[in-house]
């Protein structure tokens, strides 16, 4: 070996080690900040959705407790009025009918905003109830197998799952032209599995995501992310859509 050769190899080796070290640091630094950003984004989403749910709950309570009560009181007062003329009686019946209709609408509105049943009877019961209500008011055939012990998920998580079901059902009713829906909610291992499938026209996932359409889908994905859930959406033109969520308990 020439006398200077050792120095050349030493310099090359130092350069190589230096290059590797600098690159490793560069990559690890960007990964670290990316993780911090994901955590910060997650916290922000949780905060925003938490506030939204709180506000919904407040409005729902106000509608149910205050306006609902007032309408009931008005209805009671009206029933105490004794009318003699037939025309007045007919008018009173109409007014009472309108009040009942308004009370029903308020109840639906309050339910959609924040179903009390979710707090009192749990997620499975609330989902069953929601689907029953939908099958009553729509011609769509809904099959529901929801078996989940109450309190298995945190109340905050239960709200997210319930909203996901609401959003999916809403999407199906609005866009899918489906005639049947199957909904399953069950405990599988250390997960709660939510599976909703329809026989509608399906959609082009790429196109929807690329054109930034589908606010509903993005909402579903955001909530699934907050739940730490795995989300699988399978869809094909005219072959329906299949949503599968694996939510860690």
């Amino acid at each position: 070996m020439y006398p200077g050769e050792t120095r050349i190899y030493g310099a090359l080796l130092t350069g190589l080690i230096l290059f590797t070290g600098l690159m490793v640091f560069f990559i690890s630094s960007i990964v670290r900040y990316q993780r911090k950003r994901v955590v910060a984004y997650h916290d922000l989403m949780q905060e925003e959705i938490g506030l939204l749910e709180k506000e919904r709950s407040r409005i729902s309570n106000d509608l149910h407790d205050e306006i609902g009560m007032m309408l009931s009181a008005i209805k009671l007062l009206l029933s105490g009025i004794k009318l003699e003329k037939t025309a007045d009686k007919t008018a009173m019946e109409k007014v009472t009918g309108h009040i009942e209709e308004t009370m029903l609408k308020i109840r639906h509105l309050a339910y959609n905003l924040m179903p009390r049943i979710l707090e009192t009877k749990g997620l499975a019961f609330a989902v069953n109830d929601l689907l029953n209500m939908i099958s009553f008011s729509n011609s769509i055939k809904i099959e529901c197998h929801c078996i989940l012990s109450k309190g298995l998920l945190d109340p905050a998580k239960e709200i997210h799952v319930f909203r996901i079901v609401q959003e999916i059902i809403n999407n199906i009713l609005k866009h899918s032209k489906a005639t049947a829906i199957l909904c399953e909610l069950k405990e599988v291992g250390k997960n709660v599995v939510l599976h909703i499938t329809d026989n509608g026209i399906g959609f082009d996932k790429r196109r929807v995501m690329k054109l930034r359409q589908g606010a509903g889908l993005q909402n579903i994905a955001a909530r699934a992310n907050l739940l730490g859930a795995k989300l699988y959406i399978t869809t094909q033109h005219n072959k329906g859509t299949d949503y599968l969520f694996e939510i860690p308990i």
Partner: protein
Amino acid sequence: MPVYIWYIILNHTILFPVVAGIIRFRYAGKEYLPFLILIWIGAFNDTLSLILAYTLKTNALNGNLYVLLEYSLLLYIFYNWNNGKATWYIIWLALGVGGWVTDNFVYHSISDNNSFFRIAYSVITFFFAVDRFNKIVVFEKAQLFKNPQFLICTAFVVYYFCKAFAEIPNAYHVPFDDVFYMRLWLGLASMNFLSNITYGIAILCIQEKREFTVHY
């Protein structure tokens, strides 16, 4: 044109950020003042080096002193930008001073162009600059190319990366001919030229009022 003239011209493009710094001086504040001082000292050192090279035929002494000062100022810049713990930066400074003393008094003489400390401080600066650069890239919501810190860190990353490698052959006294070393230093001067232009643009991007932003 002789190579050394190119070398002098490229290094003296530091006058662009110097002038930009004078124009934007009143907006600099605590955030950018140390950087402006670094630029002004850098310009002074380049001129002094040129004078000493012509008169005493060596600029090693002022060069060795300058790199220690540059390292200290760089640490202070990152300390301000990162709102970091002072203790950590003092430890880095103490390590740097220790390394500088070892390189210039224990292993070599201060009257020689010593490269080990230059490699070490370039690597440390690269680490700080990359960390800041990545943080800005990941979290910044406003336009990056108008962000002075982003521009300065980009220039730091590129320049100190090249400097760390360029100093290796000199550190090992690799027996290449003068042409090799001349081209090597000219290459580094070219990177210095690019950095100087970027510093100048960054200084001109310093705004009077700064937006308050939080990470999301």
